[in-house]
């Protein structure tokens, strides 16, 4: 049996300082879901293939189900909860509400956070580039067309702002 040596990490999650002793192999998702009771990042495939566990770490969209928490010591993590609230949603969340761009919503962490991190890097992205950036995020309900409209709406508003 593998002997576990716990490792002390400190990171910021949605602006809140978090320190934990973690199994070096434990995925970040477990820390977020089980320890911090966050509902945004979801366990989907557990293999980094679907995107439902996506969070933004230091400005980049990453798959928290295959990223060890220990590798993110000192990182700044943002989940859907950290963007906005139902009462005061972030503009990209508002765009998804305006376009009614979800059915079951299980994939939204992947779609919204991947799009946001991408547009933060490339505000003038074309539709094709947005499509490319979101190619690895799965929406099994098939809401893709509405989601692309929502991202476009957000990108346009962001450029005007």
């Amino acid at each position, binding site marked *: 049996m593998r002997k576990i040596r716990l490792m002390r990490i400190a990171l910021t999650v949605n602006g809140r300082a978090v320190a934990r002793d973690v199994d070096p192999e434990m995925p970040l998702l477990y820390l977020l879901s*089980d320890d911090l*009771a966050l*509902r*945004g*990042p979801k366990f989907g495939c557990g293999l980094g293939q679907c995107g439902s566990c996506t969070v933004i770490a230091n400005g980049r969209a990453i798959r928290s189900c295959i990223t060890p928490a220990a590798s993110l010591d000192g990182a700044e993590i943002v989940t859907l909860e950290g963007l906005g609230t139902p009462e005061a949603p972030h503009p990209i969340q508002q765009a998804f*509400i305006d376009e009614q761009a*979800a059915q079951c*919503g299980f994939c939204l962490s992947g779609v919204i956070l991947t799009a946001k991190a991408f547009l933060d890097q490339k505000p003038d992205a074309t539709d094709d580039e947005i499509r490319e950036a979101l190619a690895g995020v799965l929406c099994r309900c098939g809401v893709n067309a509405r989601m692309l409209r929502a991202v476009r709406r957000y990108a346009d508003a962001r450029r005007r702002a």
Partner: protein
Amino acid sequence: MSVGRPSPDARRALDAAGLSRRDFLRQTGALIVSFSAAGVAMRFAGSDAAAQGMNGPGNGQLDAWIAIGADGRVTACTGKCELGQGLFTAQMQLVAEELCVPIDRVTLIQCDTARTPDQGTTSGAQSHPANFNQANLALAAATAREALVRLASQKLGVPAADLVAENGSVVVRNDRGRRIGYGDLIGGRTFDLPLDPGARRRHPREWTVLGTSVPRVELPDLVTGRFEFVHNVRVPDMLHGAVVRPPRVGAVLEAVDETSVRDIPGFVRVVVRGSFVGVVAESA
């Protein structure tokens, strides 16, 4: 998956489930059988459909479905869950339509096992007809509307035929200043009525809420990570279980060495039933 005669393990699975091979073929209509496919096909063809149409005890009573507060707000209960099919919002539209109230005066409680009608599983296309058409929630709301009109008829001394329900009140058709709000008619009290199978559903020509495009009620919660999926449910002292999957279907368990995990903090128990192995722990 193999095509042809059912393999021995497929036949054993069918026998274990109490189904003959003929039953299986009749239900699936195809001679495509393997161990795993047999299990899946039987669940979909038989028990699931029955579970979806299930109606628990007490569901024939109006008070199981609809309550009206002193402020005239409508609280409705449903045993069919939102699973991404838009059913939560659609059921709110249904209640608003049949009871003639604006949708923002409707509160819907879904799938709270202590309070809502037992309607079995929600798993697919049957969740919609279960509460629409002339059944259950639709019938409850129509029964409630007709009961409110009867109550208003008694209070106002006007024949029910001359009254109309609109915007949370019952109104005298030819003397529209005379009206009485739902809260004043029944607020905080129970109806004590069975669902009326003959209650009149509002005709699609009369619809003002059903058939219109209403924003999905749960979307703000979904996009901000507040929506509670089943995966997010937490109860006090909850334990977590994980299944230890075999390398292939039909694998037979040889041995379990419990000492290999017993020292892990939070470990509770290893569960072994035949070739099934699960681990229970205090955290996931």
